[in-house]
């Protein structure tokens, strides 16, 4: 009786609250569990959380101009952007251009400004060179004399914009937008527009690859799940075989097969379907990217599908038929709906992997088969515009998270089966 009363109030027999007692009893096991996951936690932090945080920071970080031309940036702070800036700004810029020319940092500043506005590099170098001879002000007239662009407020607006320590220009550039002189977001001039096309192409290729994988993978998974054990094991090995081969080997094989003088074209010419001049271009373009990516990503579709199909009881198809459904109806209305979790998981997996795919498009994509990752790589390795690369990466990450969220809303992530 006494014990019953005590437990009702959450207190043990010796008067200690039940919760405290429980916490004390499980403390050692919790500490041990935490110690066990610590290495993993550290690994994830170092290899995953920190790089992503760094990427997100770099995508808005913009230290170059504010550190190279600090006085100019400060002078432009007050400028309303309506007319030309006042003499103080001209003087500050003239002084700092000369200084940067002397300490050999002018090129860095010019390059950064040139990202934002074409022609800035030559303007800066030219002006710095000529300003050497201008000893005293007023600098305004002198600089407009050197180049009339100094008389245009767009030039100054660009400097003011790039002078900001933290900026969204990379994100805007990543979707072919920029700030105009009045601070409005406008579309890039035609010649500088590329990313919208690339984003579109990336989405389109990913959708197509997902669709092809589904079309090819569904029957394979069905066979895997329904064939007798011996045949299905063999089939499974054939599905997994590409997994065990190096990505490069597989991609190179496609080059051997698909190129103009490759195996397939040779056979088609030999059979007489194609003339020797009419060889089809199947690689170094979008077709190549599609074919190679579909083949490489197929297992990502087959395995989740298979694991779902394996759990579908064969008697449900029989039941449907005994209830009067012909085999086709039974398949469409009874079997296929039960595979939805697998279709969802496989498609999500393939789509997300293809959106960020790099190596295959780089090798077989030519110029029309390049995806957004290839541009990220380009900005990291060649143009060294890390800010833009980081912004593109962040947009990609946001897109993937959005897809995941959408999937969760529509299908429910709990319904997903990955094997």
């Amino acid at each position, binding site marked *: 009786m006494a014990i019953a009363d005590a437990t009702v109030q959450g207190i043990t027999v010796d008067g200690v609250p039940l919760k405290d007692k429980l916490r004390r009893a499980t403390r050692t096991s919790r500490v041990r569990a935490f110690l066990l996951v610590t290495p993993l936690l550290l690994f994830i932090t170092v290899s995953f959380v920190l790089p992503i945080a760094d990427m997100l920071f770099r995508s808005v970080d913009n230290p170059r101009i504010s550190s190279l031309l600090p006085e100019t940036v400060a002078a432009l702070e007050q400028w309303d952007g309506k007319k030309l800036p006042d003499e103080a700004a001209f003087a500050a810029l003239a002084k700092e251009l000369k200084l940067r020319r002397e300490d050999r940092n002018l090129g860095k500043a010019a390059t950064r400004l040139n990202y934002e506005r074409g022609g800035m590099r030559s303007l800066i170098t030219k002006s710095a060179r000529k300003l050497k001879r201008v000893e005293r002000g007023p600098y305004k007239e002198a600089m407009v004399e050197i180049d009339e662009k100094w008389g245009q407020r767009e030039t100054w607006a660009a400097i003011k914009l790039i002078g900001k320590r933290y900026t969204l220009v990379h994100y805007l550039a990543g979707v072919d937008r920029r700030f105009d002189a009045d601070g409005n977001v406008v579309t890039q001039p035609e010649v500088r527009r590329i990313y919208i096309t690339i984003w579109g192409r990336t989405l389109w290729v990913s959708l197509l690859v997902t669709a092809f994988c589904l079309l090819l993978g569904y029957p394979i998974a069905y066979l895997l799940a329904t064939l007798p054990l011996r045949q299905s094991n063999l089939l499974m090995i054939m599905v997994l075989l590409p997994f065990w081969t190096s990505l490069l080997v597989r991609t190179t094989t496609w080059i051997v097969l698909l190129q103009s003088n490759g195996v397939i074209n040779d056979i088609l010419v030999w059979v007489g379907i194609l003339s020797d001049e009419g060889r089809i271009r199947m690689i170094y373009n979008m077709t190549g990217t599609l074919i190679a990516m579909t083949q490489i990503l197929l297992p990502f579709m087959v395995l989740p599908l298979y694991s779902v199909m394996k759990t579908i*009881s064969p*008697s*449900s198809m*029989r*039941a*449907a*038929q*005994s*209830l*009067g*459904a*012909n*085999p086709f*109806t*039974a398949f469409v*209305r*009874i079997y296929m*709906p*039960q595979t*939805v979790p697998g279709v969802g998981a496989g498609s999500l997996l393939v789509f997300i992997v293809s959106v960020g795919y790099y190596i295959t498009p780089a090798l077989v994509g030519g110029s029309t088969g390049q995806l957004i990752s290839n541009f990220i790589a380009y900005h990291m390795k060649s143009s060294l515009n890390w800010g833009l690369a980081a912004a593109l990466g962040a947009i990609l990450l946001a897109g993937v998270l959005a897809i995941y969220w959408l999937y969760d809303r529509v299908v429910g992530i709990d319904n997903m089966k990955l094997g």
Partner: protein
Amino acid sequence: MPETNDAFVRFVDVQKSYDGETLVVKNLNLDIAQGEFLTLLGPSGSGKTTCLLMLAGFEPTTHGNITLDGRAINNVPPHKRNIGMVFQNYALFPHMTVQENLAFPLEVRRMSKGEVEGRVRRVLDMVRLGGFEHRRPAQLSGGQQQRVAVARALVFDPKLVLMDEPLGALDRQLREQMQYEIKHIHDNLGVTIVYVTHDQGEALTMSNRIAVLNHGEIQQLATPDTLYEEPQNAFVAQFIGENNKLLGRVTSMNGMNCSVEVDGGGKVEARAVNIEGVGSRTMLSLRPERVQINPPDGQFPNVFEGRVEELIYLGDHIRTRVSVCGDDDFIVKVPNASGHAALRKGDDVKVGWAIEDCRALDV
């Protein structure tokens, strides 16, 4: 009722082999009348499911014909046979609600919406599941799933319903309740039901007739009482109910009866049911409740000395193990009637039985 020419379902010389080597069903001949409740009863692997699958059209017959309502159905695909089927694991469609599961056979028959709704409601009432329309199978208990499965097999008014161990997954109490309900539905609707089970109690309580199968052959096809009272061979006698067996040799024949020299000693008068003649070996079958302990003198021609080995108190009767005629596993059910002599372990007793209760069968 049985063995008429216008049988509703008819198996004619049906044979089935899966691997081309062994016959899983050997020369099956079976007539099932309209409205009958026929049970296929047999141990595991005896070919019961195979018979049902052939009837439902999921397995082709290797040889022979099956006719349904006078029509050969060998070449009719399953979905055109109009046979309801209840599967052992229910085979409900997990992605559909109860309502959708039940509506499925009606929709594929292109019935109007109103008709579908009416029928679904009626059949749900019949299995007493009103209010469960919008649950999914996973949200139902085993017994409820079972009822949905039965309802689904009945909702499109098939003339024939097949049930493959439909109660196998339920606990005993629920199983007995469902036996009663299925029987009730059968009586009300008048459908023909072919039922598969390996539970003899279930078969005895539910069926009009039972076909006992073993190794793909019908051992005996009879009503439950005939099957119990008059087993035709040793397998049936042992498979149905409890049975005492005494092995021996026939020494003389005498009209319907015969004398048997039991291996363990003693000469027993028995009814000659399934023996080849004088000199052949036989198994005597005796139901435990037909044996009397210390019968009055002269009541039975068969009376033997025995000794009580074990007593188990079971309330309404006392299971008494006796050693008699060299068999120390001879069971006698002693009714717990008032005034009955109390037995003790080790007592020497007399054991007796009538000729007609002792059947001489094959070995």
